[in-house]
């Protein structure tokens, strides 16, 4: 059940990452005197992949941390 969420989420992140890799180069890749178009696309893709991995790791660790909590929240009674 919970593992299913991990899988779904991972697939979502991967899909978003791939989508961003496809979409971003169209708006961020420029040819300037310091970078060719190809290099610009490569740079975009590397950045997006690293960013996706970071964001995914952040999400999945928070999710896993809450999967099997060892303590319960103690809230004030109003």
């Amino acid at each position, binding site marked *: 059940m919970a593992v299913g969420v991990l899988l779904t989420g991972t697939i979502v992140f991967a899909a978003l990452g791939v989508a961003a890799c496809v979409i971003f180069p169209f708006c961020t890749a420029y040819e300037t005197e310091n970078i060719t178009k190809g290099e610009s696309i490569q740079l975009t893709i590397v950045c997006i992949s690293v960013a996706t991995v970071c964001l995914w790791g952040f999400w999945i660790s928070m999710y896993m941390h809450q999967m099997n909590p060892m303590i319960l929240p*103690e809230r004030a009674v109003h």
Partner: protein
Amino acid sequence: MKHGTLVLPSERARHFIDLLGRKANVQFVDMNERTMRRQYKRYIQRLEEMERILRFLHEEIARHEFNVTKGSVEAFLESDTETYQLDQVEDSLKRLYEQFSRFKENNSDLLTEKNNAIEEKYVAMAALASLHEGGVMGGVGTMPTRRQTEHATQSLLQAHIEAPHLVDDTMAFSNIAGVINQADQERFARTLFRVTRGNTFTHFQMINDKIYDAKTGKEVAKSVFVVYYQGAESSAMYEKLTKVCNAFGVSMYPWPASYNDAVSRIEDLTTTIEDKAKALDAFEQYILGEIRDLLEVPGGPPPEGADLEELRSSRIEEWRLFCQKEKSIYATLNMFEGDITLRANCWYPSAEEDMIRHLLLSQSNKQQVSAFLLSDKERTTKTPPTYIRRTEFSYAFQELVDTYGIPRYQEANPGLFTIITFPFLFGVMYGDIGHGACVLLFGMYLLIFADSLKRGDGPLKGMVAARYMIALMGFFATYAGFIYNDFLSIGFVLAPSHFKEPPGVHHGGGEHGGGEEGGGASQTQFVEWQIDPSSKPTPFGLDWAWKGAQNELLFLNSYKMKFAVLVGVAQMGLGVVLKAFNTIHFAKPLDFFFEFVPQIIFLVALFGYMDFMIVFKWMTPGPLQADLDPSVKAVNKPGLINTMINMCLAPMKGSAIDPSEQLFGGQETIQNILLILCAISIPVMLFPKPIGLLIWHKMHPPRTVHHDDGDDEERGEGEHHDDDEEDEHEHFNFSEEFIHQVIETIEYVLGTISNTASYLRLWALSLAHQQLALVFFEKAILGFIESDANVVLRAVELFFGFAVFAAITFGVLLCMDVLECFLHALRLQWVEFQNKFYKGDGYKFAPFNHKAILSTGEGDL
């Protein structure tokens, strides 16, 4: 990067350098460093003189309050195709300088003459007032009509002036007259009174016309003075008065003898003043014309809506750019050696080699001379400069890396990963939706208005270069805020909670959970919520039930610490892997097998295992889950730090693990294997590399004669020739190499442990940020909302409370905390990440490029 020699014909050398500065990136090596022979010194002196004249002209222009149009350097370079010639520009500058100096001189002469005329005119006018038609001393009523045009007070003054004459007109009175600065007036009168013991009468009259000082050009207020005294023209009194006058530096003018004399004098002087004023005007006009000519933008005003890049500058600005460019060209030529043909070694990017050759060839054909680039046949022995191309996007990140150290030539550049990992680490620490969004919005603002901010002189100008970094930092901080479910310390209900309030506890009734200490002191009671079996864990971010819970920090700290370790091990692992790429690139198998391999084994066996345990503990159900679902078997959840310590102490204490502390079956065996791997990897890091190097140097004996001191490794005295390195590094010193390796090993082993601990700053700073935000919110806002006071009073309190909240949030969290998180992220990036692979001992490729030179020297004048 390639090394070569550039050969240029000396008579056309300037053209080639100019061309290379425009189109290519070549770094020249100074050939005359030792001899200090500078062939083009004379040109540089000439150019410096021209720059001096330009500065003078700039001052003149500023004095006339004109603005110089500053266009783009690109437009100047594009238009400057033989438009300006050194001799021509020099001639026109010298001509202008002469004209301006002559104008200044003339102007000052004319102005002095004009001032004198004005002053004398006023003296004459004052005289006119005291004499009246026919030369007879007259009363108040018979003032000449001319005087009535003067200002009203004059008639009153008149009475005083004429008083002595009326009282005693049998006595002989003389007078002297002149003009004095109004500031000195009082002092002058007092001095005269003292010197003459009160036997003179001094009268002052203001001059209404504007008088400008000829030297400073500033307006000065002056007065006419007339001193009446008893006695003849050349009496002792006269002597005394002239002395005083000279001491005050006043200008004295003859006092007209008669009324008619005064009238004719005034007429004469008026025409003189007009003449001088006309002459001054004409000069002024001429100079203004010259200045306008200087300020004119060549090629006419730019078309409406023209691109900033195409905007050209005023002629004088173009001249300045031209001088600067020429100076840099001759400074470069000074690095060349040779007489008829100039030669200089240079570095250039391999990718540009063909382009440079092509440029030189086409220019050679045009100029009917030959210039060429000789690339070195053999590999050069010198370390090439590191050339990392930057874009607007990567600029700020590369700057961060370069501040630590310029990458060694062809070393893996950490800048690429820094682009994402640096803002990510910042975000983990800064995590807050509200604050992160502010940073993000600021970044967006910089991105959108980058062009106009770059042009202006605002305080944000310096931030523009870092705009992508700031936007990314804001983005990651906002994302982290969603993960922590933290908006200015308040949580959102992003998804239904996994927990529910236990039934039957309402408003103080029923059981309380672990919160006795909170419930004891105040009326607040805490109750432990239950897992809602019908719900799932929140799919994204922190469950809102934890926000405001008494044990929120307990839960969140545990998460943040574990996440910090995960991030740390991942980033350090990446660093070690990059080292592997470096060793492969530089073809150093020894480094790969005896540094990279044991290092990664050590890291993975120790902290990779810790990561595994963290994830394992997260993924397995605990007692709470077992209570809920009988089919699930609870797993022990021992403290990870204890487990790690016991694992390392296993050789002393024995590896047996208490069943209640056991995480999974076969844990002892696995831990022992990992520990043995760690233990093995340390000597593997330490010994094989220096020994391998020693053997390698033995097998490749030096070509030159050398003395061999025997092969005892222990003695470590073997000196061997290293024909691969350059001359300075030809001796292989085993003991040095060995000591170096010992240091490296110790640094790595201890570093792995301490660096992992260092990543816990991710947790610490994020905790500090969250707690600060919470305190500000509680003290400045929440207290007023929850107070029992009158609604109106609360509203007023809240109004001011919010102002305090906003101000303190801005000052502490949006300014100070951003800086703090920035610095800590920088440290993690520099020390924990980069020390795994980054040597950073390269030097920067500094090509000769007009655009770079002209752009940095913008504020020179």
